[in-house]
């Protein structure tokens, strides 16, 4: 049977390359609207409050348990902003055409990851040392951690190094993915944007060799970012949560942390493209296809959230040693039981129930609703993990050596400065991303052009579909 007879040409209503260039790199990019300016000022004000919160935490330092919300907020930021660039990497490796308009928003999250890495440094001063000298024993006592034999500068220096490497890899990848667009801004932009475009394009003229090397560099930095993301989640979740709680030993936690980071990254990208479509003037470039595809990934990672949570939970549940019971009580059924149920509802039950319906997934409003629930749920999840861990006194390593939580801590409620921090720091990250989008288009121009080059809307029998070519 000749299949070519089933296919017929239809009118291509997509924006032309010239139109896309004007919209994304040229005169179509107007100055910030008054609404956006107001929003940026609101984010800036919230950021200032966040830094006031940190300053007051330092001035009125009442002990380790008071830093729990700061740790939880940074963990949440690393979860969301660190995980989002994976949405730019994974589909690109799989040559998924649908992801092109969403890749830029996802990759720009690395700006906020870099900011998170810098904000992590004050928290390192609050981490207890790995060893202290015990007068009773006449020797050093080491608390349980992954840093066997307590090497010099561990864990502080290594955590900074890992987070800065993650940030640098993310920034390098975001820059490389934006390089051809800087060339387009140099050629078609005006004023300060054109000047920056010229500086950042660095002589990119679109020679085949330049494209080839760009592709390779994106691939290498992307793979490197992915590897470092896993490592950063591993060390962060252990050093800033698990090792602070005597007796908490869980091999699954780092992977739970990583998979929920990917879940949050997908949710952030969904909300980002929804906002860009709604207010960013790019509705011609992002739409149902991106929502539908990202919605499926969100559903998959939501199911994985439950899988990893349950895998971890069941070990403690069946273990039933005194330590297992105390750990489970601290994290699930004790002082944070209501937080846990909120997490369970918002990070799993509700988004799962919303996203199983194809009609909801294939809509512009469905995935953003589920994504909002996931982000709120995971914020509470980080509170559950980190506030509980930082409240698990004492710092006394002689007791920690017993590998047993001495007493169950009370619920630590946020004070006004914690609220400042919880609102201000994510706002600061978002502000950084939005300021960068004043120069870099939120939808990648060269990827839109490439998509137009290798796809073609056609009529297939009695329906309309997109014919996609996959070069290489």
């Amino acid at each position, binding site marked *: 049977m000749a299949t070519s007879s089933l296919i017929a040409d239809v009118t291509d209503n997509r924006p*032309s*390359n*010239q139109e896309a260039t004007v919209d994304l790199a040229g005169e179509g990019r107007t100055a910030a609207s008054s609404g956006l300016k107001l929003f940026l000022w609101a984010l800036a004000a919230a950021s200032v409050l966040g830094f006031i919160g940190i300053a007051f935490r330092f001035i009125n330092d009442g002990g380790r348990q008071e830093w729990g919300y700061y740790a939880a907020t940074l963990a949440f930021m690393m979860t969301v902003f660190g995980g989002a660039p994976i949405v730019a990497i994974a589909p690109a490796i799989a040559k998924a055409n649908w992801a092109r308009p969403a890749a830029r928003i996802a990759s720009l999250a690395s700006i906020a990851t870099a900011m998170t890495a810098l904000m992590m440094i004050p928290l390192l001063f609050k981490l207890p040392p790995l060893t202290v000298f015990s007068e009773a024993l006449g020797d050093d006592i080491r608390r349980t951690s992954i840093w066997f034999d307590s090497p010099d500068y561990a864990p502080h220096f290594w955590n900074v190094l890992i987070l800065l490497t993650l940030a640098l890899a993310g920034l390098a990848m975001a820059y490389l993915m934006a390089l*051809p667009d800087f060339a387009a801004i140099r050629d*078609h932009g005006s004023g300060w944007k054109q000047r920056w475009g010229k500086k950042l394009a660095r002589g990119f003229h679109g020679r*085949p060799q330049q*494209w080839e090397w760009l592709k390779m560099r994106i691939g290498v930095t992307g793979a490197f970012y992915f590897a470092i993301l896993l490592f950063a989640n591993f060390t962060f979740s252990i050093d800033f949560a698990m090792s602070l709680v005597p007796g908490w030993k869980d091999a699954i936690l780092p992977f739970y942390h990583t998979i929920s980071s990917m879940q949050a990254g997908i949710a952030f990208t969904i909300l980002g493209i929804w906002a860009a479509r709604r207010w960013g003037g790019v509705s011609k470039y992002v739409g149902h296809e991106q929502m539908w595809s990202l919605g499926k990934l969100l559903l998959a990672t939501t199911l994985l959230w439950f899988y990893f949570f349950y895998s971890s939970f069941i070990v403690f549940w069946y273990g039933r040693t005194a330590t297992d019971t105390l750990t489970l009580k601290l994290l699930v059924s004790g002082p944070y039981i209501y937080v846990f149920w909120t997490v369970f509802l918002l990070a799993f039950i509700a988004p799962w129930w919303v996203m199983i319906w194809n009609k909801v997934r294939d809509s512009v409003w469905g995935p953003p609703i589920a994504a909002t629930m996931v982000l709120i749920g995971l914020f509470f999840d980080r509170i559950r993990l980190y506030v509980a861990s930082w409240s698990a006194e004492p710092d006394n390593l002689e007791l920690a050596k017993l590998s047993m939580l001495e007493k169950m801590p009370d619920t630590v409620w946020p004070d006004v400065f914690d609220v400042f921090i919880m609102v201000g720091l994510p706002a600061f990250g978002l502000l950084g991303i939005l300021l960068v989008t004043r120069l870099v288009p939120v939808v990648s*121009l*060269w*990827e839109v052009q490439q998509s137009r080059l290798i796809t073609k809307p056609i009529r297939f029998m009695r329906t309309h579909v997109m014919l996609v070519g996959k070069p290489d």
Partner: protein
Amino acid sequence: MVATNSVLGLYDNPDAGANAMDGLKSAGFPLGSFDVLTGTPYPEGAFGEYVPQHRLFRFPFFGAMVGLMLAILFTAGTQLAYPVITGGKPILAFFAMLIIAYELTMLGAVIATVVGIIFESRLPNLNLGAYDTRITEGYIGVVVECEDDRVEEARGVLQTAGALEIKTA
């Protein structure tokens, strides 16, 4: 021979650009002296352009080999220098050495790949020649680098292929 002129032909469709590349090849312009400029990546060889061969694949292989050698040296050397029998296993226990061998092999491959990318990128070409800003709008540029005596010939080939505009720099 030093190329002193850069001639650019601008085309509004890729086919015409590919024809210009064919024309330059037929006219005897050496491979590597003409190239295509595009605003988006086209599949390799779509314009019949000269594709320089890189040797990046050799770098990770070399790095992996070096890493593996180092791992064997470290693990075997340490165990032979301090021969402590653990769990009744041989001094040179393959499964214990395998983990270090794997890690250092991968580390060597990764570092060598990064070095390879820098090396294979060569020095940046600061003389970028003729250019037109419409290339980032989706137009196709075909650029030829040639000496004074072949400029007119190059312009003729580009014009014959249907160039909208020809620039010389």
